[in-house]
């Protein structure tokens, strides 16, 4: 039986569907939610551990609802020397882990808030944000 930690990214349109309910009811999966950041009418992120015989079918179902599924990496780190505090990651980061300290306008990374969605690793122009597996 497979058990994996995964990250689900919901587009604004499907954030209010009862996905988890169907995963348990129709696919008989065991769901353990680790972190959730879901608001109605906004993009949402959910980190959870999922296990059960119908794991693959369950993932298939989530994807069919327009939700992105990624394996959970262990953590995201910022290479402090590379970061130029440009800010390009701050409005992309959905959890508030990357934010600008005002009035100095320095970019702060708060690992505690990070939901490991990895958007910043793609948005950062100087590759200062790195995923560690």
């Amino acid at each position, binding site marked *: 039986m497979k058990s994996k930690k995964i990250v689900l990214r919901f587009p604004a349109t499907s954030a209010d569907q009862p996905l988890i309910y169907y995963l348990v009811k129709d696919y008989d999966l065991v769901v353990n939610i680790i972190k959730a950041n879901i608001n109605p009418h906004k993009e949402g992120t959910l980190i959870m551990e999922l296990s059960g015989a119908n794991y693959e079918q369950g993932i298939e179902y989530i994807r069919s609802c327009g939700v992105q599924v990624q394996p959970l990496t262990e953590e995201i780190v910022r290479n402090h020397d590379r970061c130029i505090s440009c800010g390009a990651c701050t409005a992309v980061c959905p959890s508030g882990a990357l934010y600008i300290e005002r009035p100095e*306008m320095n970019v702060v990374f708060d690992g505690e808030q990070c939901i490991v969605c990895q958007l910043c690793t793609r948005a950062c122009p100087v590759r200062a944000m790195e995923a560690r597996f």
Partner: protein
Amino acid sequence: MGVQKTYAEINERIRQGKAVVVTAEEVIQLVKTEGLTETARKVDVVTTGTFSPMCSSGVYLNFGHSAPRIRGHKVWLNGVPAYGGIAAVDTYLGATALPDDDPLNSSFPGEFRYGGGHVIHELVAGKPVTLKVWSYGTDCYPRREIETEVTLDQLNEAVLFNPRNAYQNYNVAVNCGSRTIYTYMGMLKPHMANIHYSTSGQLSPLLKDPHFRTIGVGTKIFLGGGEGYVAWNGTQHFPSVQSGPAENSILAAGGTLTVLGDLKGMSPKWLLGASFIGYGATMVVGIGIPIPILDEEVLRYAALSDADLYAPVVDYSDAYPNRKPESLGLLSYAELKSGWVTIKGKEIPSAPLSSYSKAKEIAEILKDWIQGGKFELTVPVKTLPTPADGVVGKPMPDKGTSGVK
């Protein structure tokens, strides 16, 4: 009669170590507390700064002659193609050039991990760079191929020469479409979920001298951590100044600079390769320009604050790519910098692409250089076109796409 100062007087004070130099951020408060005339009397120079991606950048290099000689027809540095269409061992490497085997956007969005800007960064950091030259062979240049390593020290000349830098003001980008788009303005989420802007606002050099009173051909500047000069107006230099929505505020746009300087005197800290996912590679360039306070009028503009400077909001899902002259309104840099803006009744998180804290560091460094007497101001040998000249952009004559591959 108001305050009047000359470059010669200011330079004399710099030489004596008596010049009063403040950053474009510090001068705002000074004018608020002491007034325009008093501040103009007191302050000699205001320093500005910007540290932003500037695509129209590159270096020209002369890598010396081999024995037997080669006439570079095709040139690569660390696998990134450079221009071979000038003399035998001269070449120009552009910041946005990509390796021939880069997957580009074939698996969208492409990563563009390494390009010309990254090579320039490695060169200026003193790292060895692979130089590959290919030629067809001539009687005077018989050699056809070379692959070797060069460092910045070994090159005869390495000159940073950027045809369009220091954009005066720039669009604020938002995505009104329904899918995430990947632009040179960063990753823009659908349905206006984030908004990106790209100047240092009240520290931005050309926003602080919008009528080009002091910045002209020959102006000495901070460039990439070393000294550089304004060589000409930049490409697409279409300056204009309109009044903004708030009292005494301005919407300045379109001014640009061509700058150059000796790469050998620059620093890897201020020239950084950058990758914009789905768009391409570029280089983040540090520029700082001193503004001599010749009179109150020069100071009045140099002391404009984020609340007085506006930028237009443009939809990058449609208006920008299709060149439709539509704007979603104006926002001040004070609003943009606060982290949240409101457009069409929607609250949107805003973020910069240009590092304000590094821009400030540049303005501080330039201030130290001037106060320390090691950087004097230069009188422009020629003024640049000003808003009053009314230069406007011409569109490309479009004759269709057949035959373009």
